[in-house]
């Protein structure tokens, strides 16, 4: 035993060449981070610098009467309202369905059965489908199938439901963003310690009571994360609403779910491709993009703040 200490080897734990390679990788990974940060900074800076000059309260609070290409009279209030509405309706319909699906997948279905694996991979693949395909799906399923059948059923001679509308655009977006909600919720549920669930069952709770009292409150921040991701994606998406509800121009705000609506993202497209004088409308275009950016950010900011509150409440819960 004692001879070990006399022959103790010198502790050279970090040879020189490894130091060098360690430095190299620090540099490479650091540079990648820098590249991404710089890209984001340039995009945001560019939009702010070019858009801020034209951005004004008048611009975002005006409903343009006819010519929205004229810088003096143009406004984007209907677009802001339309985008907000589509995101809001999408959340109201999409998140509950996504959460319930996630609960089924993680609580009721057996984890390793073939059909559940198939459903799970279908959900993951759904997230990779191009958004224009969702747009076509919305047109085919919601408008041509659901909407027209509704009209037939109600006996309307003019199409009421069977045409592009706010509700169909929102539902199409809901279908598109559902995988995000499902995956985030499922992961949050899976992270709940088994002990808490077992404690609930051991006290004689039913499955439903355990889900309601233990699983859902614990998963709420995760659900909110899914919601935030869904909102930020949906707010800027144009392709899915192209055939399902967005209008080129409306002199009025949408009043019913079956009305068409104006959208900020689509308006950016209109301003940049349909303008009679690109130079004149350029500043307007930038200001619209800036508004879209601010709107998207503030929509998710609201959700982030709510999530923070829930987390805080979870941590220092007092009855």
């Amino acid at each position: 035993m004692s001879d070990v200490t006399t022959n103790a080897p010198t502790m050279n734990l970090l040879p020189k060449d490894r130091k060098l390679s360690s430095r190299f990788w620090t540099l490479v990974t650091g540079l990648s981070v820098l590249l991404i940060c710089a890209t984001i900074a340039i995009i945001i800076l560019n939009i702010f610098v070019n858009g801020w000059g034209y951005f004004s309260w008048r611009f975002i609070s005006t409903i343009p009467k006819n010519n929205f290409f004229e810088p003096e009279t143009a406004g984007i209030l209907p677009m802001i309202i339309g985008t907000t509405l589509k995101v809001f309706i999408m959340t109201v319909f999409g998140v509950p369905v996504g959460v319930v699906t996630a609960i089924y997948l993680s609580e009721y279905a057996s984890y390793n059965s073939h059909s559940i694996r198939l459903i799970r991979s279908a959900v993951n693949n759904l997230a990779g489908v191009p958004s224009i395909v969702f747009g076509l799906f919305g047109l085919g399923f919601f408008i041509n199938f659901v909407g027209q059948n509704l009209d037939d059923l109600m006996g309307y001679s003019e199409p009421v439901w069977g045409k592009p509308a706010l509700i169909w655009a929102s539902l199409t977006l809901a279908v598109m963003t559902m995988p995000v909600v499902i995956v985030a919720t499922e992961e949050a549920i899976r992270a709940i310690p088994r002990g808490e669930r077992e404690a609930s069952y051991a006290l004689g709770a039913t499955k439903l009571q355990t889900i309601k009292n233990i699983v859902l409150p614990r998963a709420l921040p995760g659900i909110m994360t899914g919601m935030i991701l869904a909102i930020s994606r949906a707010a800027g998406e144009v392709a899915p609403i192209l055939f399902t509800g967005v209008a080129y121009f409306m002199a009025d705000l949408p009043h019913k779910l079956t009305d068409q609506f104006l959208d900020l993202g689509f308006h950016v497209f209109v301003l940049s491709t349909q303008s009679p004088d690109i130079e004149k409308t350029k500043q307007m275009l930038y200001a619209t993009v800036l508004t879209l950016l601010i709107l998207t950010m503030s929509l998710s900011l609201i959700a982030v703040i709510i999530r923070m509150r829930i987390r805080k409440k979870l941590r220092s819960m007092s009855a």
Partner: protein
Amino acid sequence: MITEIKQNTMTLNSIIFQTPVLTSNTLIEIKNLSVYYGKSIAIKNVSFNIKEKVITALIGPSGCGKSTLLRCLNRMNDLIENVRITGTICIGGQDIYAKEVDVIELRKKVGMVFQKSNPFPKSIYDNVAYGLRIRGVNNKSVLDEVVEESLRAAALWDEVKDRLHANAMGLSGGQQQRLCIARAIAIKPEIILMDEPASALDPIATARVEELILSLKENYTIVIVTHNMQQAARISDFTAFFYLGELVEYDTTKKIFLNPKEKRTEDYVTGRFG
């Protein structure tokens, strides 16, 4: 090594064993119980009877099936996929695996305390009240009363009475485990199952939990799984020794520790095992 074993035996000899009421009635009858996880067998044809209002300890090396057996008694194994159970377990004459048995009612009668303390991330009050609330008891004065009664029975009341509405996660490990015991007794079970309830606690907290378990014997039938030989010797009246899924020996704790019939039991309780 040899001195170690001697010391071990000496400490066991110096323990004052519980003297069980040998006339007490059988409450749980386990007959030819076998449990399979998929294709592997966890419990092999085990039969024995557990008496009412005594503490029965299940001991044995890791993986011997003692926790599995415990979890059969309130059908917690139902929650795990691929578990197959044969044989019968009768509690108070009722086969708990019979088709007409309501698991929810069973778990109300057979409470459980887990190895890792698992309070809900709710207030101390809400933790204790959970079992009653899920049964629709919402009367505040009833809840107040039960919460106080249970916390007193769990020897926790004096420490937490001023912060009943603080989060239970802020309690120390020992307090959390006593809270879990309070939560279990709040629904007034007849049997309390304990799965190594003190294994994650320091010696002082362990002593308090042991004291508490002893005090609960008056009103409850307790089945406790433990790795701690001294603990089994100190608190239990009867001890069942399991090895590789089989019940090797079951007798009064005193006999198991001082005069076991089986060589394997003797080797295990004196620490000569493995």
